[in-house]
């Protein structure tokens, strides 16, 4: 075990997969010599060479489209979009092909690629560098949409994503790339894609969240416990799509009160689907309306305002208090 930031843990996952499977190839803008603008691929070109860690021209559709061809040939490309806000340049390749080739060929071909992209706010970045639009990908049949929430699960999920036979969109929260360290085992570790995880036990309400929002949500839960004697059950989705609704619908049946926390704009966002599943599967147990604590339906503000846009622990806590009639 070594204490690692999420960026280091992701680097470890890539390093080990590169070492043990020669089908794995990294590609993207500045992933090679520069080691990635967030240093997630730092040092990998030195160890594995230009053949395995490929600096590409500046063209996202090119990167995604080329990765599709590589995957069809039998490689396991892990491509990077420098920021998720520039993955739209590749959206047609992802929707028109990555998500469909298995179906189009009725199983003859597959696209085992991973498309990594930093997402979300909180690092004082420029316009287009702080978006959280996982819903676009979650709504696209044929894709998997994975968002880890910390160093250890990031490493394990990235390994699983690389080994997954289907295309995985892998969003990495910039805000936690180096926010804190966690013990990450040197030996191989994987986590199943498509499974959510309970990360805190409680009986008063259920909080459903993922990615960078896990920390403020947990912080709020701890404060509620300390100050208000409210105990929250907290579910970390880890995979946004295909959505594993088993844990949170079960939890809702216990608590009767649910809150969803995400950074993405509220309307037509991931929270809506979580609410829909709750209505479909736990309706008769719900005591109060499900609450959404989310980004707003506006262009993600520039960094001088982002702290008021991104849900924070106080906002989560206040929403919980209100839900429990203590607001």
């Amino acid at each position, binding site marked *: 075990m070594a204490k690692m930031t999420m960026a280091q843990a992701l680097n470890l996952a890539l390093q080990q997969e590169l070492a043990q499977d020669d089908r794995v*190839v990294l590609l993207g803008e500045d992933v090679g010599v520069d080691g990635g603008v967030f240093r997630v691929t730092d040092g990998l070109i030195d160890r594995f060479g230009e*053949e395995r860690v*490929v600096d*590409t*021209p500046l*063209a996202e*559709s*090119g990167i*995604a*489209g*080329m*990765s*599709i*061809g*590589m*995957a*069809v*040939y*039998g*490689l396991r*490309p892990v491509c990077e979009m420098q920021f998720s806000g520039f993955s739209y340049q590749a959206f*047609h*390749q992802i929707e*028109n*092909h990555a998500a469909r*080739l*298995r*179906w*189009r*060929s*009725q*199983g*003859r*071909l*597959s696209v085992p690629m991973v498309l990594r992209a930093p997402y979300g706010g909180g690092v004082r970045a420029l316009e287009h560098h702080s978006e959280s639009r996982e819903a676009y990908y979650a709504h696209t*049949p*044929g894709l*998997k949409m994975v968002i880890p929430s910390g160093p250890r699960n990031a490493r394990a999920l990235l390994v699983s994503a690389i080994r997954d*036979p*289907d295309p995985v969109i892998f969003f990495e929260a910039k805000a936690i790339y180096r926010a804190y360290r966690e013990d990450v085992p040197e030996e191989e570790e994987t986590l199943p894609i*498509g499974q959510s995880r309970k990360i805190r036990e409680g009986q008063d309400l259920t909080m459903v969240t993922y990615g960078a929002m896990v920390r403020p949500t947990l912080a709020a839960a701890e404060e509620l416990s300390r100050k208000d004697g409210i105990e929250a059950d907290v579910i970390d989705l880890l995979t946004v799509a*295909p*959505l*594993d*609704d*088993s844990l949170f619908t079960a939890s809702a049946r216990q608590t009767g009160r649910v809150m969803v926390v995400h950074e993405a704009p509220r309307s037509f966002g991931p929270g809506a689907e979580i609410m829909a599943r709750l209505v479909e599967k736990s309706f008769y147990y719900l005591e109060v309306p499900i609450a959404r604590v989310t980004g707003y339906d506006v262009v993600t503000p520039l960094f001088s305002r982002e702290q008021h846009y991104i849900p924070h622990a106080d906002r989560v806590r206040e929403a919980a208090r209100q839900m429990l009639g203590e607001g």
Partner: protein
Amino acid sequence: MPRKKINITEKIETLSILDAKGVVDKKLEPSMSDQLLLDLYRAMVLGRRFDERLLALQRQGRIGTFPPIAGQEASQMGAVAALREDDWMVPAFRETAAEVWRGRSLESVILGNNGCAEAATIDPPGTTMPVSVPVGSQMLHAVGIGWAARYRKEDKVAMTFFGDGATSEGDFHEAMNFAAVFQAPVIFLCQNNHWAISIPRSKQTRSRTIAQKAVAYGMPGIQVDGNDILAVYSAATEAVERARAGRGPTLVECVTYRMQVHTTADDPRRYRSDEELEGWKAKDPIQRFETYLQRKKLLTKKKIAGIEEAVLAQIQAAVDNAEDLMKTMGDPLDMFDHAYAEMPASLAAQREELAAELAAAGKEGADG
């Protein structure tokens, strides 16, 4: 230090070997075996006749919309003939004859044009990608495939097909640039058939040729008479050899003509003249190849009739077979297959929903 001309060294040439009258330029005539020449002739005839039959089926409502290939047989066959079987072909959507040459069954084509996903399961071709409908998007896959082949130290090349219209898409540009930067073994085979639905080549781009677009990428480009199978074969072979030798990609522009509708949903009289079409009929790729082969004594009137007959019989058998196959097909529940390698729980639940609906409807039908 003053104003200087920049010397652009990439060579852009134009090539024609067999003219519209079937006269061959002996100096340029490629060396091809008699068998290959005859096989290609047969494949072109099959392409044309199959096209006609598909049109008839479509008019009778027995298949859906499809894109005919008539007029483009030389471009397609001359190009794929230069490939090895284990090379990759990455088609757009108007390469039926070439796909068939590469092993796709006629049945698969018929089923595909009738909205059956099962088309992909009938004699699935190994190293031919499925048809790609989004214009221009498939070229990048060829770059990835070519890159991967080289990475694997396998001497396979990838040939990707696209139209004149496709050259306007951003993906054309990204694919050409990536291929050149990585020196990937890719042949960019443009069938410039003068039209992208109703948009003429002249409104698609202002460049004099499509071949010269190669200059932007530091890549060799060549324009060939796309109705001249010898020229197409020669240029494609040269490009394939270059790619296989590790000397990177080539852009080949085949100047040809779409003699039919864009798809069966299209009415070309809205945008082009009969005269234009007539002019191109005189340049028919099959006609001139037939003349050439006759002069070479490889074909006789009788042999031609025999080929026509065999081709029609082959098509008829495929139509019958496809229509039989379709009778056994149609489980709506298979739409849930192949979305993922393993079906997620939420999808399995949706499948159950549809299964219940179908069972209830069946029961109602049986009861009612």
